[in-house]
């Protein structure tokens, strides 16, 4: 009885909540503005309202259907501004060329944070609401045509391009709205401040407290008899791209550490990332050794790697994973870098993982964008996808991480991971391996810790790779390394649907705010820079936003498999293109049903059932206590499995 009742009530809620989106575009967009008015935290990345990535925007709330009058009034309104967000310019009669529905005329508002377009000439208002941070390039297309229109193209970092046009200004002195946009889209190039520094929203949770290096090492059991915490890099003197807190083998004094650092590119010596709680096998990361053409050696470095190996009593071997293809590694010798020779490092085995560099990855994503945006060629979909090699790169990264995890878990062997500088591919590999090895990182908090640790504190150069607020879109340092990592995580969640506490929306949100410049988390290149810029003091962390509304990001199927190591099958038969991210702007690609809402209902139901199980369990214990010892043992034991899964 109870069961069907609850289904019904969920159902009725659902049907009313679905109403707006089904009925018309107008009500969809209204429900959106209602939502943003109501929801505490801002939703930074709204999509085209038609594309309204229904799957991933939490817009389906229980709302009475708005009347036509309300729609009108709402559409006159400006976007719901964030704290300290100010309107910079406003233009009417702008045409937006939507690749999916065609040309739309309307008004554009540019603030110091977003671009807001609302169409006027249709009965159904269309809304485009986008943070300026995603803009990679603004280009004027052609000169003034005979009709006197000026056209602008916006190339975005999140796999879409936008095109606008407006009439040639009669007053030639007045700046076009898109010139204003350029100014605020690239604040860094224009001597302005990134919006994150102005945005002062207060959230119930403080995301800057999520990660503390010492407590994370403590969670792993460090310091212990073979590993210690060193303060040698306290002022970032030994390595300015490393965090201040490092874990190193006990028997290597700080002085020797400095000499090891001198032998490694950018001073990034091998330090601990993760230690196996039972076997003491470790994952350590570093940059390439400065071997050079002459095959230089460093006694300290050799001794140091020996110490890493000795710290693990289980194995008399050490695996060095060089993420690069061996050809590239050899080529690096010309620039003074290189790889460990097996003569110099006894008991070490070097393995190349054949992952390509940032330039190859950038090119691959560019091709992918060409294939998926705006239109998809139906007849050659799979072969076009193949020609981008994107999935092949994903496969190589996952395969590399799997080998690392396997060596640590099954081989009980310590591993050293590096690429050239040890901040791109190395971060991908160590963090993915840790995700496979340690269930803690598969929780929401744990994943935040993992990102803070392996990516942010170890100096993945977010500023350079993403180019926040920088107009130099051809910068060769830009690369989708982090996106690739999140893609790999998504692939893992597909294979282990119940092993991750977070859902797809969580991953998409992280990627959206990677670009949005609303939060300070992904600004700057290293911990040192972040400290200098006082990022934690002056900006808000994206984790504050996420942790204040966890129910949006929780996977209802999550079962705590914390003691499991995940070994994904890295077969191309399992890898898929992440449509929910790469093709989300295409309304035809949108999933037919927003599962997001259903997930939340399931979560609520699960909580309710858990409560009931607890109650019943209490009842059972009471009964069995009163009804003598005959069955005393069995009920409690029998409950265990149920409890486990609920």
């Amino acid at each position, binding site marked *: 009885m*109870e*069961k069907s009742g609850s*289904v*019904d009530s*969920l159902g009725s*809620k*659902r*049907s009313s909540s*679905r109403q707006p989106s089904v009925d018309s575009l107008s009500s969809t967009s209204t429900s959106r503005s209602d939502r943003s008015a109501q929801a505490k935290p801002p939703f930074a990345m709204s999509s085209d309202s038609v594309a309204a990535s229904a799957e991933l925007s939490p817009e389906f709330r229980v709302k009475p259907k708005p009347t036509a009058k309300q729609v009108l009034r709402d559409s006159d309104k400006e976007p719901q501004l964030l704290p300290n967000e100010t309107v910079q310019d406003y233009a009417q009669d702008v045409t937006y060329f939507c690749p999916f529905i065609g040309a739309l005329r309307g008004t554009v508002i540019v603030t110091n944070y977003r671009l807001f377009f609302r169409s006027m000439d249709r009965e159904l208002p269309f809304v485009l609401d986008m943070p300026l941070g995603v803009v990679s390039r603004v280009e004027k297309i052609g000169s003034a045509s005979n009709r006197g229109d000026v056209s602008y193209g916006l190339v975005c970092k999140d796999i879409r391009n936008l095109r606008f046009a407006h009439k040639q200004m009669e007053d030639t002195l007045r700046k076009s709205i898109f010139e204003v946009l350029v100014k605020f889209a690239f604040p860094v190039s224009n001597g302005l401040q990134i919006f994150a520094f102005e945005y002062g929203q207060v959230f119930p949770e403080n995301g800057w407290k999520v990660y503390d290096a010492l407590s994370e090492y403590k969670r792993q059991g460090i310091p212990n008899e073979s590993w210690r915490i060193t303060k040698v890099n306290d002022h970032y003197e030994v390595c300015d791209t490393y965090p201040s807190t490092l874990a190193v083998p006990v028997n290597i004094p700080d002085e020797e550490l400095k000499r090891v650092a001198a032998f490694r590119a950018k001073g990034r010596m091998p330090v601990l990332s993760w230690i196996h709680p039972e076997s003491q096998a470790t994952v350590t990361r570093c940059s390439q050794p400065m071997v050079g053409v002459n095959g230089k050696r460093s006694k300290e470095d050799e001794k140091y790697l020996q110490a890493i190996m000795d710290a693990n009593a289980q194995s008399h071997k050490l695996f060095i994973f060089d993420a690069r293809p061996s050809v590239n590694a050899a080529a690096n010798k010309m620039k003074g870098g290189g790889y460990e020779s097996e003569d110099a490092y006894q008991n070490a085995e070097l393995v190349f993982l054949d992952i390509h560099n940032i330039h190859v990855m950038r090119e691959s994503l560019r091709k992918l964008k060409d294939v998926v945006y705006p239109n*998809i060629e*139906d007849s050659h*979909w*799979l*072969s076009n*996808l*193949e020609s981008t*090699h994107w*999935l*092949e790169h994903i*496969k190589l990264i996952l395969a590399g991480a799997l080998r690392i995890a396997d060596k640590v*878990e*099954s081989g009980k062997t310590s591993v050293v991971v590096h690429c050239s500088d040890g901040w791109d591919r190395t971060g991908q590999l160590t963090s993915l391996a840790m995700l496979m090895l340690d269930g803690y990182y598969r929780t929401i908090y744990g994943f935040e810790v993992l990102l803070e640790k392996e990516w942010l504190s170890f100096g993945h150069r977010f500023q350079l790779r993403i180019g926040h607020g920088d107009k130099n879109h051809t910068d060769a340092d830009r690369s989708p390394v982090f996106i690739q990592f999140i893609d790999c995580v998504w692939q893992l969640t597909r*294979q*282990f*649907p*119940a092993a991750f506490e977070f859902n797809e929306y969580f991953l998409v949100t992280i990627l959206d705010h990677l670009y949005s410049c609303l939060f300070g988390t992904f600004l700057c290149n290293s911990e040192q820079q972040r400290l200098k810029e006082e990022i934690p003091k002056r900006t808000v962390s994206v984790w504050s936003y996420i942790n204040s509304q966890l129910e949006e990001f929780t996977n209802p*199927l999550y*079962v705590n*498999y914390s003691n*499991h*190591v*995940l*070994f994904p*099958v890295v077969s*191309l*038969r*399992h*890898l*898929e*293109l992440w449509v929910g991210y790469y093709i989300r702007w295409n309304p*035809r690609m949108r999933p*037919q*049903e927003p599962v997001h809402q*259903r997930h939340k*209902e*399931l979560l609520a139901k699960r909580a309710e*059932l*858990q409560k*009931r199980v607890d109650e*019943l369990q209490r009842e*059972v214990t009471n009964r069995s206590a009163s009804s003598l010892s005959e*069955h005393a043992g*069995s009920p409690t034991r*029998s*409950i265990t*499995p*149920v409890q*486990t*899964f*609920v």
Partner: protein
Amino acid sequence: MEHIRTPKVEQVRLLDRFSNKFTNGTLYLTATHLIFVESSSNNSTSAAQEIWILHHHIASVEKLSLTTTGCPLVIQCRNFRLVHFVVQRERDCHDIYSSLLRLLRPVSYQELYAFSYNPKQNDQQREEGWQIIDLGAEFERMGVPCDQWQLTNVNRDYKVCETYPRDLYVPITASKPIIVGSSKFRSKGRFPVLTYFYQEKKAAVCRCSQPLSGFSARCLEDESMLQAISKANHNSRFVYVMDTRPKLNALANRAAGKGYENEDNYSNIRFQFVGIENIHVMRTSLQKLLEVIGTRSLSMSDHLVGLESCGWLRHIKAVIDAAIFLSKAVTVEGASVLVHCSDGWDRTSQVCSLGALLMDPYYRTIKGFMVLIEKDWISFGHKFADSVYTIYSTWCDQLDGDPKEVSPIFTQFLEGVWQLTEQFPQAFEFSEWFLLQIHEHVHSCQYGNFLGNNQRQREDLRMRERTHSLWAYLMSEKQNYLNPFYSLAYSETHPVLEPSTLPYHFKFWRNMYHQFDRSMHPRQSILKTEEVGEEATESTDTERKVEGSSGSESRKQSYGDVCVARGSCRSVCDNLLFTQWS
């Protein structure tokens, strides 16, 4: 049994399809199964693996030439299992090989597993099992008979059409002479009859086979039959006639005195070709697909390009496109539709059943899906016997006696449904596992449902008295097949599904084609989690919970592998593999 020469062979090696790994074990040959039991000595942590292969599942056995390790025996099954044994002594291998060759080609129905399978039920339970699906009740649910449609007894004795069921629904105005006349003008006598009635718009979905029109032949009865169908629907002045074949094939059929309706002769029809390829193209396409995915070291590009070039997903798309056309015509335009292909039992069944699935939420429930298969496939005479196992191909007088009637038409239908469940995760009561289980038993010959080619054959064989019904078994296991995302409310708000047919929405169905390749399994299946979800639902039942341990114990067993894994050491992640699959 007299055909078994060697019931047991020891020291047999089972090779993994995609790696160099292998396991040693013992091979047993029984009257119904080939069983491989892994020798338990090598690892004690997990239970010895057992593989049971039903003889009826075996599509081909191949003995390869002798190697240093022994004699290889490759067995390809109809449920896409492929096993590769190496038997040490050639004589043993040959014995098994020749026994299997005999066993997998039963000469009479009596040899089929269904006639010896006994799930410990008495006659009454068996009868009840058969009564779960009642097609009369199904037509009543649709609102038939009504003022425009009636039950006709013209086929009571299978005189008019022997591949049709006894009970047929036709328009009120279609008199017996019209029916008989029409049936004579249709291939195999399969005249137009009702298969689905869309009550809301009073629109009907009818099915038949191609007309014997040749280049110019006409049949007045057939024309008035279509007229009657058209008149039964007041919402629309015309009736759609969907020929599911490509136009070229239909044209070619004209030379053989068959063909398609001429719009000039039939008043009020709109004729439409849909372009689904024939069974031979489908069979070849599937073979190519299996070749591609069976390649051992497949590169990403080979995989994607191979998937595209084999055309399998394109064919699935064509079938779904046709179903969408049907569903739109009925639900949006309110027009009646007549569907046919050549004989009206392959493509027609696919399109009618998928179309109904899109239109009616009832068919998306577990019970409703069984009804749908029973109605559009079993009762309307999809030739399961021919298309899934070759044994009685002598009965079939088609294609100059060519026994090549085997075709994955039903598999394709199930895959179409699966593709829809991927697009509409909340719309279906059942999970992928349910589809896989049906696919398994279509080929297993363990239950009577799919034996024989049509109702008449099944009645002659007294199937209901001598075999059991699959539906009863699936119903008793319903808990295992529930989809946790299923939402009743969604079905109410979205009675009609409108799938997208963009290329991306057609994915490779890994769990169908790699179901038995352990190394290809995801380490954690959503199915597992679904069961867990159901656990949660179950535990609301106060009585069961409190009464104690027996239920929970058995549950514990079924989730044992997970529990064991939790308790024991970390590295046995493999235990998460849902072992009941193999």
